[in-house]
């Protein structure tokens, strides 16, 4: 940037005024700002991450292996994988369908629909769990009916899946809507003119165009589904080996003062979080190469 300053003031020496100094901060200030930022991030990001792995391996690799391969831990991993899989599949279908309907057609109430899709982001995780207890809990609106038919939603797998689907509901949709909006319907319309069917257009034209955005949304949805705690905690009932997801298993072990095991299972989740960040960076690089603007990664209000 400093080289360009020459065009602003042609002869800085004559004016007795150095414009390069006025366009950036003095080296000392820059150094202090970088140091303070790194200190802040180190304290709040790197150290907590390090403590997870350090505590997990505190008692050696043997204890680590035992904690991770223990029966309840394995069933927690299975339940987490199942829940995550269902949430990602359902929300991917919804994300693609909603983006298609919203960006390829004009209809009244479109903005309301977009706002409603964002609703789950504004609700506290605990409240997200609460709404399902109100519906399906023992004293909930459908509680009696479910009990009569011997069906269990709350304190069982369906409740956990429902709460997770609710929490991760907008993730993929909100990645795809701005992306497809920007790309516009021209290529798909060209496909139609050439005689392609709706599904052909989708597989051959739309999907290749949105693949990075879709993948991005799936990765974020996946990370959140795997780690969701508050909502799941309300509907799970914490039954070991049955309705415990990985984060809930971590909580139980921790509350039993079994720190090594708690951090061992936690380290698996932390590792997955790091993988998520790597995958995210990878996709961002690719999208940048193809000049696709990915919407911000997180729960952000769409239009400020």
């Amino acid at each position, binding site marked *: 940037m400093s080289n360009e300053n020459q065009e602003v003031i042609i002869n800085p020496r004559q004016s007795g005024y150095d414009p390069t100094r006025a366009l950036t901060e003095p080296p000392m200030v820059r150094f202090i700002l970088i140091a303070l*930022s790194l200190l802040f991030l180190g304290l709040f990001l790197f150290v907590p991450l390090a*403590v997870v792995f350090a505590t997990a391996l505190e008692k050696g690799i043997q204890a680590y292996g035992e904690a991770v391969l223990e029966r309840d831990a394995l069933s927690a991993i299975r339940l987490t994988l199942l829940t995550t899989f269902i949430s990602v599949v359902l929300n991917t279908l919804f994300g693609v369908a909603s983006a298609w309907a919203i960006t*390829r057609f*004009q209809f009244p109430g479109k903005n309301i629909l977009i706002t409603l899709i964002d609703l789950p982001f504004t609700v506290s995780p605990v409240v997200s769990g609460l709404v399902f207890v109100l519906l399906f809990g023992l004293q909930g609106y459908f509680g009696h009916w479910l009990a009569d038919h011997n069906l269990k939603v709350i304190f069982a797998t369906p409740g956990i899946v429902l709460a997770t689907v609710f929490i991760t509901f907008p993730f993929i949709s909100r990645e795809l809507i701005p992306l497809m909006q920007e790309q516009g319907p021209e290529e798909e319309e060209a496909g139609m003119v050439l005689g392609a069917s709706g599904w052909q257009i989708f597989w051959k034209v739309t999907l290749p165009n949105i693949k990075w955005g879709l993948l991005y949304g799936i990765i974020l949805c996946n990370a959140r589904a795997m780690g969701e*705690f508050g909502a799941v905690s309300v509907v799970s009932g914490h039954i070991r080996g049955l309705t415990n997801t990985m984060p809930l298993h971590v909580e139980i072990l921790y509350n039993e003062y079994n720190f090594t095991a708690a951090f061992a299972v936690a380290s698996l989740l932390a590792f997955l979080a790091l993988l998520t960040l790597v995958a995210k960076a990878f996709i961002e690089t690719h999208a940048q190469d193809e000049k696709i603007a990915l919407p911000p990664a997180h*729960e952000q*209000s769409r239009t400020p």
Partner: protein
Amino acid sequence: MKLKSTGVLPGFGLTMGFTVTYLCLIVLIPLGALILKATSLSWGQFLDTVTSPRVLASYRLSFGAAFIGALINSIFGFMVAWVLVRYEFPGKRLVDAMVDLPFALPTAVAGIALTALYTTNGWLGRWLEPLGIHVAFTPLGVIVAVTFIGLPFVVRTLQPVLESLDPEMEKAAVSLGANRWYTLSRVVFPSLVPAWITGFSLAFARAVGEYGSVIFISGNMPMKTEIAPLLIITKLEQYDYAGATAIAVVMLVVSFFLLLGVNWLQARTGRHRAT
């Protein structure tokens, strides 16, 4: 109201039908149940629940800690965004990617990690406790947890705005004789204000409802370090659905009005900038 598509592409009926059905089943009906439950409460019942001292104390803690956390994040988040956009230093890409860690790391993991750090024997706690600074199991711990959770919001909302700032503006200010501080305070900072407010409000909203990372470090002492979401769970465990709903409704309403206020503030600063 009849929905009518004006696009020429096929698939409107299918995608729209699926979207609306799925939205109703997963989001609207469940949230409707909350509203239905809330309207079935009598005023007396509702007020008794939400003005009991224990509930009031939890609101104070949840909203207070969220506010302070968002404030810390808006200061340091601004600094981090500035450093990442304007300066070069080794490891910058790694640092940039790591900023999203609080989004990717499960909250329960963050909770136990922060607690382990700040207890008496923890890596940081053992230095802070002799100084009389108690973080774990105090309101300070709640602030630390919500600061962690809200960290990416301010950085990620400011970063794109900083990147898209036109350098010509700063050059123009300099050519008119402004020094660096004057350029920053009169040219750069004002154009960042709307994004800054957005980042603050997002971090705040997230922190108010936060549960997983807070309950481990807070210690959950009634009246002292008990957050509102935890009280909802306590009420549910006692099968007091009405009480849980009342607490939840107040949280939703307060968050909603805060965000509304922020939007209003933003619209105002935006207009001010335009004129």
